[in-house]
């Protein structure tokens, strides 16, 4: 058994790199998973920095590459980064809102070897799509969907589900089918970052969730192999935690816009840990030797009830960020687990979400949209997102 903080000897290579090439985004989605204080993060990496870091990760064994953000198309070197990554042998998916995806750019991505495009919609209706993203983007996204098919790309449609749109799952799936999507991700909101701030607006009721799952299963039977539908359940409705990132520092390497290398999108919030920057360190050292990536590998950091639990090899104690956000200690059991002495932190919120009126928020506090102004304010107030107790934007 290794000592806490020492490097376990059996570290496998990363498989999946998520490159958040920018935090800039023309959309203002209330459930965005970028850090709430992104406006305080450092300068973006240069093209050369990205290419070097991706090459180092590929040499370690990484295969899957997500080019995301923010909105990755905000960078005009996305084409260069993708073309270079393609030469390295990555399977590359562009994760985009569609804003900025012109025919000229999609042709360049095609030529450069981009493999797939994941297009996000916020809803099947223009009204709610545009409200949730606080932009007028529905028509534009619909045009982009056509462009993606025109360029013969496999299309992955991603729709983040929550209390305000989950009752539209049937329409959302019909829209996906009409667009010719090969893959649909109905991703229930997980409560981090901006989604945590807006949690009382977003958490669906159990009845909403069950209905949406039933509709999804019926639709699966209807489309068969033509369209793969993933339905990601919100972990608040589970009794055992998700195997977050398939284990800390196990397969996933997130590189943020400022170059910070992280074991997940959210780990930047954890106190007492220092995460390395790809500008200063080789990815091999980052992955294998940096204290940040070794902090929660293995199980020597675990406390009870995880430590003696047979499920620890399946769920790794759940999510460190969620444990920290909700209990104040990242080494606690994820409170989603019903064996956690703090499981009530989840069930109290879930109970509140059952009433009175699904489809309507359970709070009178206004929605906090993701934008630079709110980010600067949230960055000053607290590093850890908590549900908005009072309007941020007065």
């Amino acid at each position, binding site marked *: 058994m290794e000592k806490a903080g020492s490097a376990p000897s059996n570290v496998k*290579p990363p*498989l*999946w790199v998520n490159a958040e090439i920018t935090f800039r985004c023309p959309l203002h989605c209330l459930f965005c998973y970028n850090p709430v204080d992104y406006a305080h993060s450092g300068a973006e990496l240069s093209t050369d920095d990205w290419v070097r870091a991706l090459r180092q990760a590929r040499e*370690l*064994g990484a*295969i*899957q590459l*997500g080019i995301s953000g923010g909105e990755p198309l905000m960078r005009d070197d996305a084409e260069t980064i993708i073309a270079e990554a393609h030469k390295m*042998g990555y*399977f590359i*998916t562009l994760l985009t809102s569609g804003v900025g995806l012109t025919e000229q750019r999609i042709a360049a991505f095609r030529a450069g070897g981009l*493999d*797939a495009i*994941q297009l996000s919609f916020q809803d099947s209706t223009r009204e709610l799509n545009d409200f949730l993203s606080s932009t007028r983007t529905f028509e534009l996204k619909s045009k982009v969907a056509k462009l993606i098919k025109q360029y*013969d790309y*496999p299309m*992955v449609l991603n729709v983040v589900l929550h209390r305000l749109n989950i009752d539209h799952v049937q329409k959302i799936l019909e829209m996906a089918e009409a667009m010719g999507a*090969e*893959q649909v991700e109905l991703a229930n909101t997980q409560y981090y970052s901006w989604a945590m701030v807006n949690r009382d607006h977003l958490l669906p009721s159990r009845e909403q969730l069950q209905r949406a799952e039933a509709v999804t299963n019926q639709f699966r039977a209807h489309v068969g*192999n033509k369209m*793969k539908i993933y339905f990601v359940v919100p972990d608040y409705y589970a009794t055992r935690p998700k195997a977050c990132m398939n284990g800390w520092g196990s397969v996933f390497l997130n590189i943020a816009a400022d170059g910070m290398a992280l074991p997940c999108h959210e780990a930047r919030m954890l106190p007492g840990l220092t995460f390395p920057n790809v500008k200063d360190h080789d990815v091999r050292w980052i992955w294998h030797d940096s204290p940040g990536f070794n902090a929660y590998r293995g199980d020597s950091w675990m406390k009870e009830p995880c430590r003696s639990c047979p499920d620890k090899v399946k769920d790794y104690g759940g999510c460190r960020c969620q444990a920290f956000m909700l209990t104040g200690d990242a080494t606690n059991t994820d409170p989603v687990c019903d064996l956690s002495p703090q499981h009530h932190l989840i069930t109290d919120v879930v109970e509140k979400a059952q009433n009175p009126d699904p489809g309507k928020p359970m709070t009178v506090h206004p929605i906090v949209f993701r934008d630079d102004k709110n980010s600067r304010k949230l960055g000053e107030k607290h590093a850890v997102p908590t549900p908005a107790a009072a309007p941020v934007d007065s």
Partner: protein
Amino acid sequence: MSAPNIALDSVIELQRQYRFQYEEAQKAYVLLYPEGLIRLEGSAGEILKRVDGKTSVEGIVQDLQQTFPGVELRQDVIDFLEVAYGKGWIRTK
């Protein structure tokens, strides 16, 4: 068991969201698709390596028998391709 989808004269290809390649770090063939990865163990990799949208299933079997002489693998190949079809990895042309 449902009706077979794969016959000896079927010509098959990968569904277009999939990419097949050898990964040195894995020491294995893999199937890649948007945000996913399937590691293909021994024979699965050898079979899919020969799926090119031109060769029939019979052609794939014969090629495998040349590479691995003395092994009766016709039924194994068909069984695997049925599974791959069921999972949506491949389609018939």
